[in-house]
């Protein structure tokens, strides 16, 4: 297949799909039930103008970043300890494994009880979701460090600090960063889940803690606007793509010695 066809086939297919979609919805005349491309564009325009889209997205993203930072700050040291000291690993491994198997979102009711609805419950879920990928990838990263490098550094008289800073961290960093990328993707998924659950559970009129998830719930139950619903799904996809691409770039920039 030629390059031109490779690019043209999906474009034609999706272009045709959009046109067909629009035509089908117009024919059915049921704009309340079926989303359509023009309606989504209109919803995007309206919600960009009144600022709800931007404030919802920044609200959710802000929470993701804070939760991610908490998860990283707690997960990386534990991962380092588990990776460097086998007894710690054997002791903590089963605990980490079993806690990891609890879907972060399942903690929502307890988090609501502990931290309240004003965004902090979602924060707990995000931190929980990011913590485990950080731990596991850091453990793996430390274990993947080339033993020859460690022995060479030891022979050359490197002390504990130098070993950690000069050998282990630089070679572990690429894998740790991969963990960071997985974590952030995870965090973005969980913030939506958390906000949806909170929004459905607590019909709060408070605009303070509103994120994309709560906006979706409002859209579903109060405005009944399918177009806006699909718009929010597209926004979620765009942000998760941006997160992934951005972190891949960051990974390359931060660890130029290891090409991934």
């Amino acid at each position: 297949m030629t390059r031109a066809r490779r690019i043209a086939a999906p474009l034609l297919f999706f272009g045709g799909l959009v046109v067909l979609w629009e035509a089908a919805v117009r024919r059915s005349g049921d704009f309340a039930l079926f989303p359509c491309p023009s309606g989504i564009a209109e919803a995007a325009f309206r919600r960009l103008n009144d600022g709800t889209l931007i404030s919802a997205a920044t609200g959710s993203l802000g929470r993701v970043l804070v939760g991610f930072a908490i998860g990283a700050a707690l997960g990386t040291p534990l991962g380092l300890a588990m990776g460097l000291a086998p007894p710690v690993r054997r002791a903590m491994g089963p605990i980490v494994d079993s806690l990891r198997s609890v879907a972060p979102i399942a903690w929502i009711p307890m988090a609501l009880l502990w931290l309240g609805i004003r965004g902090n419950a979602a924060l707990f879920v995000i931190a929980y979701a990011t913590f485990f990928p950080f731990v596991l990838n850091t453990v793996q990263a430390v274990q993947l460090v080339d033993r020859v490098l460690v022995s060479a550094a030891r022979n050359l008289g490197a002390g504990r600090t130098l070993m950690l800073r000069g050998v282990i961290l630089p070679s572990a960093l690429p894998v740790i960063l991969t963990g960071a990328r997985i974590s952030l993707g995870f965090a973005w998924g969980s913030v939506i889940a958390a906000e949806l659950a909170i929004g459905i559970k607590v019909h709060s009129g408070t605009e303070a803690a509103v994120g994309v998830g709560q906006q979706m719930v409002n859209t579903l139950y109060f405005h009944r606007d399918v177009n806006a619903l699909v718009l929010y799904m597209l926004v979620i996809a765009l942000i998760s793509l941006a997160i992934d691409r951005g972190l891949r770039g960051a990974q390359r920039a931060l660890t130029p010695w290891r090409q991934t």
Partner: protein
Amino acid sequence: MIFAPGGMIHCATMAAPTPAQTLPLTGEPAIRLRRVLRRIEFVPALIVAGLLWQVASVVARNPTILPPPLIVLRAWADLLGGDLLDDVAASLTHLGIGYALGVASGLLLAALAAYSETVEAIVDPMIEVLRPIGAIAWIPLAILMFGVGGGVPIFLIFHAALSPVFVNAFAGIKETDIRLVRAAEALGASRATIVRRVVLPGALPLILAGARLSLGVSWMAMIAAELTGADAGLGWRIFWYQEFFATDKVMAVILTIGLLGYALDSAMRWLQTRVTRHRPQPDDAR
């Protein structure tokens, strides 16, 4: 793009491998004792964690805010004789239907995409567009489409399971060693034989890695969907108990979710090592 198993590694697999078959043959009692000790090293950590939990709940001075561990265990024992099994059955039904549909569709799409370049040119970008949306974002639309009930979790699990299986199976099939296929052809193997004896065994490790990843994502999607848009299942039950502020039962259900999720993942891991024993495991590659 291949899903690296980097996010789903088990600490247990990373501990020093102890081949179980050779265990009775090593006569040294000291070595055996040390091995047993290593296996139960997590017990003190577990006790410490339990004590910390107990201390925290004493400090909180409110068993509703943080029920102490023994109360939760008692609630759990109570639930095991009552509602809990129904919820587990409901959740596993959602998971079974959604996961089977998702894996089957993922495999079918991967096979079609590997067979025809036109299908690949359409399906591959479609998956790449759909994947970042993620299962969770479909919840409101799924509630609108199916109403609150079993449809929402099943649809979400289907959606969550599909793309990892597709991506991995497709990569696995594509990575088939062309020399093996040529050799089989030269030896007169039919198309069906080549698919069954060359392509599938070669792709199996990646397919299973995708299936295991799918199961983990599906499990999370299931809980989220049941919390928000179902009328049965473990996720639904959490909020149900929370309405009565029965937090000991909430914690017991959370515990169940963790244990079941762990059991499912372990089963998949066992399957992985069992079926693909002839090749190095991606997880244990070291």
